[in-house]
């Protein structure tokens, strides 16, 4: 019926490939996790958490498409808006050691 349910190759639907892509992005997020944990400086961690957040927005959007549930995009939107908050909170914390906090 919808594009997501169309069979692409060998019984795999488009939705399956989207889920696979989401899994690939999650593996990339695990790689980025190394920088967030290890990161010698706080700037590394800020960037890592920012990339992780953006990655999650992409994963959520792909999941929304793969499961053909448009309302799931709300969650991706919330993350897109609030990940920015997380990034500026950590970066402001890093800049002045909580002087502005």
């Amino acid at each position, binding site marked *: 019926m919808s594009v997501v349910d169309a069979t692409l190759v060998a019984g795999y639907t488009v939705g*399956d490939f989207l889920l*696979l892509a989401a899994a690939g992005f999650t593996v990339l997020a695990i790689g980025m996790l190394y920088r*967030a944990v290890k990161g010698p400086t706080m700037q590394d961690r800020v960037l890592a*958490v920012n990339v*992780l957040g953006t990655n999650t927005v992409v994963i959520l959007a792909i999941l929304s498409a793969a499961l053909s549930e448009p309302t799931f995009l709300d*969650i991706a939107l919330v993350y897109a808006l609030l990940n920015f908050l*997380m990034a500026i909170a950590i970066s402001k914390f890093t800049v002045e050691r909580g002087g502005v906090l």
Partner: protein
Amino acid sequence: MTGAVPLVTGSVGSVGSVAPVSPVVAQVTAIEASLLAFVVFTALATAFARDVLAAVIVFGAYSLGMAALYTFYRAPDVALTEAAISAGVTTVLLLLTLAKTTRIDHETAFESVNLPAAGAAGFLFAGLLLTMGDIPAIGSPDAPVWSNPDVTQWYLTETYAQTHVENTVMAVLAAFRGFDTFGEAVVVFAGGIAALIVLHREVFA
């Protein structure tokens, strides 16, 4: 707009219908496995990080994985709560608390493991794992949700007729168990009061 009724009713059914058809969806799909690995890694890193700020940041990443996992399991309300609370609120409050305390500069990145404590925790964890066998698989028709349709299906089918609300989760929260939700709201309110008392303040702002 499709609304949330197909979103709820179609959730478990679509898992069951997709699983036998598609070869990718095995017992544990790739997306499930990678998300679970991400969540486990972040949880372990949060527990073992020596630096508190790093632990807070990695805990934020943990919530990202949990929200994606909830989304995959078709629990958008829970995922939205996880997103709003942990990305927007918990990290900020923990950072503010860190700003009011001192952070020790650590040489090592990870905590050293206390073996007796790890043994006790592992023992408890193994005990909890023993109960895993009794938990039905996700989307399993043997789950109590499906094996007891007189109760659970009633909410999915009767919610709109009784409340004219499409989101069954909200209908259950605000109407069918509204008194419980009232208690929860009062608990949140009491939490704010308790924070005032703990921090010896009279006013919030």
